[in-house]
């Protein structure tokens, strides 16, 4: 087990390196001169040139890359010029807000999606199955930012049940209740697509498993139908559901960008969009590398979970 985890961690190193190369290359392609962006369009050419030298932007790209990478490895992500604070501080703060949102959405979509998929498979071609199938189709077809806006219109503006946006009340908020009230809509809006995908996959996996011989064995033993479905069958189906959960976690993390903008959630997606629009290159690079690295580690975690769940993989 330990060896397996170690092997996976080592194999992540080239992937992470590749990610830094891609991020760096794309950002190098972005038109617009960071020094001009920092100093404003009225800066004199001399000032721009001096700042470029200070930032190391006059060196060849390759050496720029290695300096940047060297700093990254030491935990130095540089400084955001637009925010005038260390990139890592900003990234960590924003990422924790995203984690709250994406984490809540992920828990929702995993629970709802699996439950809906199991019920759908257990009642194949029945009324519940049809209703779930239609709901799933709607769920995976709706643009999440649009769904978010509609939710705001209905639940916040019309019904006034929930706050329109943000993570906490500006005055007097800050406790868990406040957070949950702000979290409810964005987390739900963010989870809808993934719920649909997971439900549909769980259904397919369950139907596949329910035809297996060991299900017949369980029935021949006299195991009740509830236990056959939610125990024996779901346990086996999870082997193919878990990787999808991993992929969907990535999609939820990505989709958070839209939701963060719609609901003014102070997460890293919104930060990155702002940073890209402002040409805040170090912030973009640092943020993307950080998120991608988290994503890679999360995938390793999924694989490890998979091998715990399926003893056949380990050998």
């Amino acid at each position: 087990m330990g060896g397996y985890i170690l092997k996976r961690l080592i194999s992540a190193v080239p992937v992470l390196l590749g990610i830094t190369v891609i991020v760096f290359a794309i950002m190098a392609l972005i038109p617009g001169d960071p020094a001009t962006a920092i100093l404003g369009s009225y800066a004199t050419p001399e000032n721009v040139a001096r700042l470029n030298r200070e930032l190391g932007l006059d060196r060849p790209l390759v050496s720029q890359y290695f300096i940047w990478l060297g700093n990254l490895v030491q935990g130095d992500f540089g400084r955001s010029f637009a925010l005038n604070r260390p990139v890592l501080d900003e990234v960590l703060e924003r990422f924790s807000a995203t984690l709250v949102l994406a984490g809540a959405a992920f828990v929702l979509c995993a629970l709802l999606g699996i439950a809906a998929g199991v019920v759908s498979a257990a009642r194949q071609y029945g009324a519940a199955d049809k209703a779930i199938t239609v709901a799933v189709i709607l769920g995976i077809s709706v643009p999440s930012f649009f769904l978010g806006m509609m939710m705001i219109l209905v639940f916040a503006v019309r019904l006034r049940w929930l706050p329109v946006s943000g993570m906490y009340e500006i005055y007097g908020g800050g406790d868990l209740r406040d957070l949950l009230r702000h979290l409810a809509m964005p987390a739900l809006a963010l989870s809808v697509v993934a719920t649909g995908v997971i439900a549909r996959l769980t259904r397919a996996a369950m139907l596949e498993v329910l035809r297996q011989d060991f299900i017949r064995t369980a029935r021949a033993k006299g195991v009740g139908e509830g236990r056959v479905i939610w125990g024996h069958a779901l346990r086996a189906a999870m082997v193919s559901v878990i990787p999808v959960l991993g992929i969907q976690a990535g999609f939820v993390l990505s989709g958070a960008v839209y939701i963060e903008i719609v609901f003014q959630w102070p997460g890293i997606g919104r930060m990155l969009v702002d940073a890209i629009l402002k040409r805040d290159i170090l912030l973009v690079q640092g943020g993307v590398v950080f998120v991608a690295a988290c994503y890679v580690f999360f995938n390793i975690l999924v694989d490890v979970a998979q091998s715990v769940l399926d003893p056949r993989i380990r050998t």
Partner: protein
Amino acid sequence: MRLFLKLLARNRLAVFGAAVLGVIVIVVLLVPLLPLADPDVTSTGDRFQRPFSAGHPLGTDHLGRDLLSRLLWGTRLSLAVGFAAAVIAGTIGAGIGVIAGYFGGRVDNVIMRGVDMLMAFPYILLALAIVAALGPGLMNALIAVAAVNVPFFARNIRGITVGIAHREFVDAARLSGMGHGRILLSEIVPNVLPVVVIAMSTTIGWMILETAGLSFLGLGSQPPHTSVVPGVMILLIVMSINLLGDGVRDALDPRLRSGALSRPMAATLVDRDTVPDAQGPGLLAIDGLRTEFRVGPRLYKAVGGVSLSLAPGECVGLIGESGSGKSVTALSVMGLVASPPGVITGGAVRLEGEDLIGAPYARLRSLRGDRVAYIFQDPLATLHPLYRVGDQLAEAIRVHHAVSREAAAARAVKLLADVRIPNPEARARAFPHELSGGMRQRVGIAMALANEPEIIIADEPTTALDVTVQAQILSLLDDLRRERGLAILFITHDFGVVGQLCDRVAVMYAGRIVEEGRTEEVLASPAHPYTKRLIACVPELGGGRRWLEAIPGLPPAVDSLPEGCAFAPRCAKADDACRTGEIALAGDGRKVRCLKPEVVA
């Protein structure tokens, strides 16, 4: 193709999707011809008109532009962009996938490493970064969305290409000296193309969503009410594409076509008009059992009226070729025939006089494994792969008896010892895949014994094992049976096995019993020509697999049984009389269904 369209037309959701999509596409194609306001003309005087205002059926936006016109032109553009992005991503991705899959080795390795790396990115960040590098604009959003999706296509198509690249026709092309380019174009691409097209069409909706998302991010926030209608439009388009795509995929899936993806229910469906009168003693009495498989319009009569009884402590062999209906007979007893497609259409199965076919599910469940237990053929497939064998045994006990977890676990270990598994404590913690085939089957037997049933139905329990292990398992079963007074219904295709274990034997052919009697008598003087052939070609115990080839001809398909004797086409003695009318299973104790039996029963 006809079949495909017919299947597609049966899927109501897909038809609905196709209709909605069709209407949208037609409207969108006609847009330039419609009398619409110019979508880009701004007019400050007409800002924020409500819907249904004069000249603006959907109102206007914050710049006073006509919303209906913008909606239709925008839809036209979205569809075009989604389509283009799918085609671009699909073509490039498929190209990469085909090359990686066809050449394999190092090329494959390098390409797939790159693909993995791209897939490790949260895709929106990648798309955003690309848009940032290229500048805003729909064209660039299109490129970004297409680029982000290339790895998905590459990975999918690679998998399919790998499968094709090792088929015979590709090898043949290679041996005939065709170049790589020619093989790729003439052998691989035509085979991959349908998959690529389907993948493209099912991802168009996805592409539209992503492009819409990117333009949303680029535009920043707008007053929400102006986006209600476009949002609904996107939802409609994407939904109809998804519905149609699902329908297409389902209609192309051969497993769905055959109904093989239906989930078997908890107990076999019963659809019988009359219940035969109770008759005869015996612990278990199968009486005129009929079981069919209903696959679409076709009907397979797997069991066509089988009667068989089992006395306490008796071992009866049910022997026949595969497809003779012997396993279906065995599974019908406890309602374990997969259903759909299986249906029990007649007869009765009585356990001490109680009819099991008509029994409610709850009653059936309480008897399963408690009084009637099964041992199945391939224990690797029939044991749950992810539960420890000890837990599987303990569960068998706990579903019928309210005993503590510890007591059940202890009993599980005892059961493993009873079936002569060495070191049972350790083995109880093993997973099925960690045991040898023989050990696994011992576990299967232990599971059947868990609740000390009166009857065990063993469905070819030794077929998957090698000869020595087979002999061990058979002698174990024989010992257990004598120690515990078990009645066994033993399903097999091997007369050698029957001879070693069974008191009586019934021979099945094409869903019916053709001969029945005491094992010694049947073995010494078989009455049915079919039985005689079977016995004649059993060389030794466990060698029974060879006899299939030794009888000329094949058993008839059970959906097209000939009239008269089903064995007539393969029988040397067949004449016209054999091919007409019903032939009865005649005799008492020693029974045979033949007009010209080898010996008089």
